[in-house]
């Protein structure tokens, strides 16, 4: 699989330039290497290589591992492909942090991504240098910074960030194994692996409080009637320490993107009201803060959601009320929410389901089912636009019914109610077309054949050929195709910019950037065209990454 490294190279080249790209390429193709190894393969001076490594470590896409070889301590460097691929999301992150938390937040994320990591002190310095009225701005920035930190969009940088996850895992495992007297049995090994995994997850989770200090606010003396515990809660607020480095927490952003996508999906297939209710549900059940790997959210009841229902939902429920006009009363918040819960539960995506061990009225958001639904939906859409309606139909029948013979795919048998006679139900396509379309799907690797020989000699004439679609495989391949397409688009952007290099250089010139009139009409037109092309390519790359999110991260 060489598409993923290729895409990584494209990204590194675009973000860090050709020198870092060369180092990254060696690490991507050869695996982990020592400094001298990298120097040997890149044919670059040690100093340059070292600088490139520093840049990558600073941006958290390169890891090191120390190992003992004989008497020497050797340091190996490796590159994190997943981390690089996440950099595709940078634009989205800057935009949405601005949407959610205001302009200052987007500046903070922007700066943080530029520098890899950032302290509050650096930020204040930047504000002093760049903003017009720094004194007022500093407070606002400080506030946004701690807001981002407390919501875990940014996390403190820890020493283990510079170690690859696999190393951390192996280390923790080695410690656990050493505690045993004998070598671990298979079961013990599995147990250890599970425990270590959890330990690492916990470490990532507990990161939240690091780099924060408690701040006592002055709201204490306001109200005597407030109970002691509540007063305590009011007075403790978290604040970011000045000289702790912070970095972007991609996971948290991905989770928010996921939730937004889920809400969009509900709005799309049910209606706006359903989307709103689902958003309230997610907010109420704290799904914005829980881990992303979880299959379901915390349970919440309709009453909880009803208590925060906005007022415009009462007047415009989005529900057809003609039937109820006899009663002629306005529905209560609980009615509306219960109704939407039912709609969400019954929809084909099965947004929510009843919580297993909670009371009757408790529901959880079923992320797994939604994810599968979204993946299926996208896949179907793709097949439809690539192969047409009837081919897509055949594939869908195969997915639904499991393994089918060609004839059955065309006309599968279903016993009727009396169970006496097999009634034929048709996919309603002529035999010739069916065969052609199955072959087409087969060449594109969407469906496969399973042979079931009837006799011991396995003669093809006495063999039943069953067709089936393995969805997981399709998704994997689709993901690779997506990586490849993104890499293609990125390369094309690079190509488009390179062909206009002369013009771009001219644009950069000081006299030209100050006075646009120095450009000829032809140049202006070319610039406009170039901008249009690059924009189109960038938008496509962003949308492709959205698809990657659905298949990989959600």
């Amino acid at each position, binding site marked *: 699989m060489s598409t993923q490294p*290729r895409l990584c190279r494209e990204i590194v080249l675009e973000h860090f330039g050709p020198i870092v790209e060369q180092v990254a390429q060696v690490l991507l193709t050869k695996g982990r290497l020592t400094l001298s190894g990298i120097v040997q393969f890149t044919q670059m001076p040690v100093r340059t290589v070292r600088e490139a490594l520093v840049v990558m470590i600073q941006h958290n896409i390169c890891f090191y591992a120390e190992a003992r070889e004989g008497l020497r301590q050797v340091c190996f460097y490796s590159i994190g492909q997943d981390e690089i691929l996440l950099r595709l999301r940078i634009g989205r992150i800057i935009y949405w942090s601005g949407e959610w938390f205001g302009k200052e937040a987007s500046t903070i994320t922007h700066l943080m991504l530029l520098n890899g990591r950032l302290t509050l002190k650096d930020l204040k310095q930047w504000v002093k240098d760049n903003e017009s009225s720094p004194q007022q701005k500093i407070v606002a920035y400080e506030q946004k910074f701690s807001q981002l930190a407390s919501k875990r969009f940014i996390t403190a940088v820890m020493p283990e960030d510079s170690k690859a996850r696999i190393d951390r895992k192996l280390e923790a495992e080695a410690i656990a194994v050493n505690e045993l007297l004998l070598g671990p049995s298979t079961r013990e090994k599995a147990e250890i692996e599970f425990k270590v995994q959890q330990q690492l997850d916990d470490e990532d989770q507990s990161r939240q409080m690091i780099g924060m200090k408690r701040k006592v606010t002055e709201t204490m003396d306001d109200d005597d009637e407030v109970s002691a515990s509540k007063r305590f809660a009011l007075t403790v607020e978290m604040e970011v320490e000045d000289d702790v480095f912070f970095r972007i927490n991609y996971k948290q952003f991905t989770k928010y993107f996921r939730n937004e996508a889920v809400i969009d999906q509900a709005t799309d*297939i*049910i*209606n*706006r*009201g359903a989307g709103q209710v689902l958003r309230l549900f997610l907010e109420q059940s704290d799904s914005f803060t829980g881990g992303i790997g979880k299959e379901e959210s915390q349970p919440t009841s309709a009453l909880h959601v009803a208590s925060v229902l906005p007022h415009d939902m009462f007047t*415009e429920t*989005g*529900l*057809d009320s*003609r*039937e109820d006009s006899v009663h002629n009363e306005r529905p209560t918040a609980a009615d509306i929410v219960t*109704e939407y819960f*039912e*709609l969400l*539960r*019954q929809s*084909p995506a099965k947004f929510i389901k009843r919580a297993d061990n909670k009371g009757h009225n408790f529901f959880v958001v079923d992320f797994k089912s939604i994810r599968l639904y979204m993946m299926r939906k*996208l896949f*179907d*859409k*793709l097949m*439809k*636009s*690539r192969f047409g*309606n009837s081919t*897509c*139909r055949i594939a*869908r*029948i195969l997915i*639904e019914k499991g393994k089918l013979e060609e004839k059955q795919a065309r006309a599968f048998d279903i016993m*009727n*109610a009396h169970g006496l006679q097999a*009634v034929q*139900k*048709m*996919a*309603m*396509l*002529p035999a010739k077309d069916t065969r052609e379309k199955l072959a087409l799907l087969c060449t594109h690797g969407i469906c496969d054949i399973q042979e079931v020989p009837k006799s011991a000699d396995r003669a093809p004439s006495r063999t039943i050929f069953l067709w089936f679609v393995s969805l997981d495989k399709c998704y994997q391949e*689709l993901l690779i*195709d*997506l990586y*490849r*397409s993104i*890499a*293609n*688009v990125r*390369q*094309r952007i690079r*190509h*488009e910019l390179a062909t206009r290099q002369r013009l771009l250089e001219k644009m950069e010139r000081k006299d030209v950037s100050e006075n646009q009139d120095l450009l000829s009409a032809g140049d202006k037109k070319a610039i406009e065209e170039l901008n249009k*092309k690059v924009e*189109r*390519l960038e938008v*496509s790359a962003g*949308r*492709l990454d*959205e*698809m990657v999110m659905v298949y990989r991260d959600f």
Partner: protein
Amino acid sequence: MKAYDRSWPKQSSHFSVHRTSGLDSESKLIYSHIKEAGNEGIWTKDLKKHTNLHLNVVNRCLKVLEQKQLVKAVKHVKWPTRRFYMLYELTPSSEVTGGAWYTDQELDTDFIDTLASACYKYIYSRSFPRGDRNVIFKADYGHYPSAAEVKRFIHEKRISSVELSTTDIVCLLDLLIHDDMIEKKMPFAGFMDDEGDSDMEDGGGVEWVYKAINRNVTSTTASDGGIDALSEVPCGKCPVFKFCTADGPISPSNCEYFNKWLNF
């Protein structure tokens, strides 16, 4: 299928006795077996097996019978290469002709498409409240159409020239389900169908109701708005996608499809 254990089926009417009177015993035997098969028809190989006659004899007899216009050969839709025989005066059953969807032993796809889109339009019109596009029916809404209602609609509007059974309609609706146009729902509890004539035909007495999935898709030919990201870029439909490399003879830098797409 009927049992063939009787070696000499009873002659039921004087008419047939009269018709077969001039035949030899082997032809009579074959005639009786063909008659037994009714409007389903019988395959020549089966005939041979049941009568224990030599293939040549069977063929000779069939030729005689055909000449006398007592039996006829029909094409079976499931096995187009096999020769099926039935009595001359019978009309082949829907099993043999393939039912409503076949015209001259061939699947009539145009007919199916027209009917399916008519069904979809009908179901669509009953799946969402009229007026504001953002308003939807409640979860316990009970008036989504069932297969019987769709059938009645098709019948009343005279869309089909052929008589369609509820099973045929269920076929069509399954087709729409596989196309992801409509979904099958359990009728809301307490809702009783006033038709009641098709309960037994599809599974366990439950009558399924159907609902259009996407409000933005108004007909079977329209796409549900928006194209996915991968199909939008040239790579999604590129015939040489697999050969394309970063610096090979085919590469994104010299890609013609990209040129076309970007200059559009």
